């Protein structure tokens, strides 16, 4: 029977050419497996809707050109771009600054970090053969993912963040990713966070760039949470209106580890945020939330895989999407409970508010369960704001748009109220307000 083989697209051939020409300049880094990653990509190509995991986000169709990797910006250009960066700007924090995917050391607090926290530029670590590089890519499923493998193949910059055992710094660490320029470019950054036992760290991550510029950021965050450690993470995507923003978080949790991560999306014409969790330790606690607010032409995809491999894990995953105009929201969530993961308590929910008739929401909440003593559930809802609730507010004198805004705020708020860091929580609520305000 006939076998149909996809022809390679211009973007795919372009990426191969870029990899070949970049090969000479790549740092020597056997640990990260750049060549294997590219081989993987060469074999699979850009994922299309025929690939189940990309059913609703067809990267093969969306990425028509292979944008060249961004050059490191001049000191001046970096300063100008960072001066107007807004994400988490008012929060007191130690900062690491990336402009067009390159670490800007002059604008980063590489020294004077809170006690117990170390930051090593990934290029330095690769030069020295840092043993922690082995902790990259902590989740097997991420290594079978085209976006993540492209990040590995083109990895240009990043940092290794270490937190020593028992250290609990007060200040959060803010990683700001700012994009600027006038020509199309792509970035590939990788951050590794390694928390030793009993440590705690809050990380804020902001991603922004100018409207109208076609650029393709691909950011990956690998986290290893040691025994009894806590990692808190808030992320905003306010990328420019023409950006295709791809991002991956992969996390491995040891015994009694805790993870809290929330991602707020308002930017990029197409974004895909992937979360891969390897719940290897017992009695872990995981909170994964997301809030996406979309306008005309946008597509935002949140893809989650929580792989419970040990006893007693508690997982709470909540995703909220608000769609205004002709935009598409995608949620794909999968909870795997392996045979050993008895007493897993997992709840996953995706809710969507469609404010106009043109919007669409694609939900795929999956469960794959091999243990018999578990309580797992998923829920998905989708619809317009409740007319009764609107009426209630309007009867109290609020004009309809304001009543709707209040409902939207309350709806999205549920995904954000779990954020422990007060400043981060307020900043995220600020993002919601700004989006609603811009909507008018």
């Amino acid at each position, binding site marked *: *029977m*006939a076998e149909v083989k996809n022809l390679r697209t211009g973007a795919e051939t372009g990426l191969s050419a870029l990899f070949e020409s970049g090969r000479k300049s790549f740092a020597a880094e056997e640990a990260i497996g750049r060549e294997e990653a590219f081989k993987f990509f060469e074999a699979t190509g850009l994922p299309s809707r025929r690939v*189940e995991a990309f059913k609703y986000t067809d990267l093969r169709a969306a990425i028509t050109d292979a944008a060249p990797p961004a050059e490191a910006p001049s000191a001046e250009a970096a300063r100008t771009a960072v001066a107007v960066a807004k994400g988490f700007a008012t929060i007191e924090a130690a900062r690491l600054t990336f402009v067009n995917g390159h670490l800007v050391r002059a604008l980063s607090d590489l020294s004077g970090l809170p006690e117990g926290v170390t930051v090593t530029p990934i290029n330095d670590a690769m030069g020295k053969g840092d043993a922690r590089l082995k902790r990259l890519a902590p989740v097997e499923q991420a290594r079978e993912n085209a976006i993540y493998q492209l990040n590995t193949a083109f990895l240009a910059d990043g940092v290794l963040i270490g937190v020593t055992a028992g250290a609990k710094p007060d200040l959060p660490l803010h990683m700001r990713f700012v994009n600027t320029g006038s020509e199309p470019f792509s970035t590939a950054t990788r951050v590794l966070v390694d928390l030793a036992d009993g440590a705690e760290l809050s990380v804020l991550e902001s991603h922004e760039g100018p409207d109208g510029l076609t650029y393709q950021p691909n950011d990956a965050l690998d986290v290893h949470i040691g025994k009894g450690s806590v990692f808190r993470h808030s992320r905003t995507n306010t990328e420019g209106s023409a950006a295709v923003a791809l991002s991956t978080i992969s996390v491995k949790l040891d015994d009694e580890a805790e993870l809290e991560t929330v991602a707020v999306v308002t930017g990029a014409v197409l974004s895909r945020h992937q979360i891969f969790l390897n719940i290897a330790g017992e009695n872990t606690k995981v909170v994964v939330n997301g809030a996406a607010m979309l306008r005309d032409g946008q597509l935002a995809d949140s893809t989650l895989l929580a792989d419970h491999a040990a006893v007693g894990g508690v997982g709470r995953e909540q995703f909220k999407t608000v769609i205004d105009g002709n935009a598409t929201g995608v949620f794909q969530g999968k909870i795997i*409970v392996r*045979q050993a993961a*008895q007493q897993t308590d997992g*709840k996953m929910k995706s809710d*969507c508010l*469609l*404010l*106009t*008739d043109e*919007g*669409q*929401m*694609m*939900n*795929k*909440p*999956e*469960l*794959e*369960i*091999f*243990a*018999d*003593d*578990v*309580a*797992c*559930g*998923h*829920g*998905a*809802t*989708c*619809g*317009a704001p409740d007319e009764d609730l609107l009426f209630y507010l309007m009867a109290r004198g609020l004009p309809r748009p304001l009543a709707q805004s209040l409902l939207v705020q309350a709806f999205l708020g549920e995904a954000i109220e779990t954020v422990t860091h007060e400043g981060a929580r307020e900043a995220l609520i600020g993002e919601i307000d700004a989006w609603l305000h811009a909507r008018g």
Partner: protein
Amino acid sequence: MPAVQETIDRVRSIDLDQYKYGFETTIEMEKSEKGISEDVVRFISAKKNEPEWLLEWRLDAYRRWLTMKEPEWARVSYDKVDYNDIYYYAAPKRPAAMSLDEIDPEILKTYEKLGIPLREVEVLEGIAPERRVAVDAVFDSVSVATTFKKELEKAGVIFMPISEAVREHPELVKKYLCSVVPATDNFFATLNTAVFSDGSFVYIPPGVRCPMELSTYFRINERDTGQFERTLIIADKGSYVSYLEGCTAPKRDDNQLHAAVVELVALDDAEIKYSTVQNWYPGDNDGKGGIYNFVTKRGDCRGDRSKISWTQVETGSAITWKYPSCILRGDDSRGEFYSIAVSNGMQQVDSGTKMIHLGKNTTSRIISKGISAGRSQNTYRGLVSAHKKAKGARNFTNCDSLLIGDQCGAHTVPYIESKNASAVFEHEATTSKISEDQKFYCLQRGLSEEEATALIVNGFVRDVLQQLPMEFAVEAQKLISISLEGSVG
């Protein structure tokens, strides 16, 4: 929490080793040559005395099928079928029977053993004569008997083997066959279109409420054969029909293929209720033998205010690949899907439904209960989608699974696609989601939490089983009181 002992015992009682329909009937059979080719397609068509147009349909489908690939997306793994190593047509050698007395007594005995009444008189003398069922009995590739034909004719209802309908009502068959499941729909449906042998044809005229339940009983008997039945049910304006389907097969060490297609068409204000108790031989405890059940079932609510309801109790088959679906085309039409799927031993089930909302104010409801035991894998896979024009569409989905033992797996893969704001979709899959208020009410009255849950869940499961006509409810009864403690989404 894990399943309680009572539930475990009950599931064990419907264990594979107790498959009581596994006997074989020895009978002289006439078969097509082994394998598939244009000649075999022509042979089947000639055997059925078919008009030229149908043969052309079959040949087109066959040529199309040659270019298609077997689907691999389902969560099942099995040794691939060698499509050239099976017989596509097998029929008892005795000439077609005009009355029951002419039917090969061995076949009659087979149906008696299965508890299927082919003699109308026996039914009439039954204890509940008002619950009469007209039966079409399909034995391998042919229909051997259809009961109550005369009485149905009086009401204007056409109920006959599809091979007969092709000759007697070609205009209806031509108009509706392949109109719900196109010949090119999928690998197995296309294969079925090329080689389908027998199945039932039902037409209910406008405004008629079918005077009795209609039923088809499928039996695979012959070794190395595949069964490719085709069922077409048309409910004309304002009519109603309830249709039941049952199936069994002998115990054998090798796998047999069953690739059926069922098409339902409901016109304005019509209602079709389709119930299945699927009890094909599931293979032994080590996964040896059993039926590959690759079935395409689809209903088209073509008219306004029409309704199609699928109820299925799935206990058999080694591999199940089955998604009874509703296309809600007419405004205010309604689709329902009630399913209980029990897997045991090495069975693999990948089943669910599709509710495709196209018309305004269409509603659908999906209730699915999956129970896996032994080393089986049980997957619910479903799609709910609302088209831009499907204003006011509503869906409620609830799928629960229960695992018994730690060697099996339960999976849920729902796709929920909403393309307009006025559509309201709800999907839930937790027991705790079953109304906290109800539970609180029961607790207030002194029930323990477990009792309260059991009461609510049982009430709810009974709701599903009430969808089954009484004849089938008996078989399903065994599952009734399987409470869903320890359920997971």
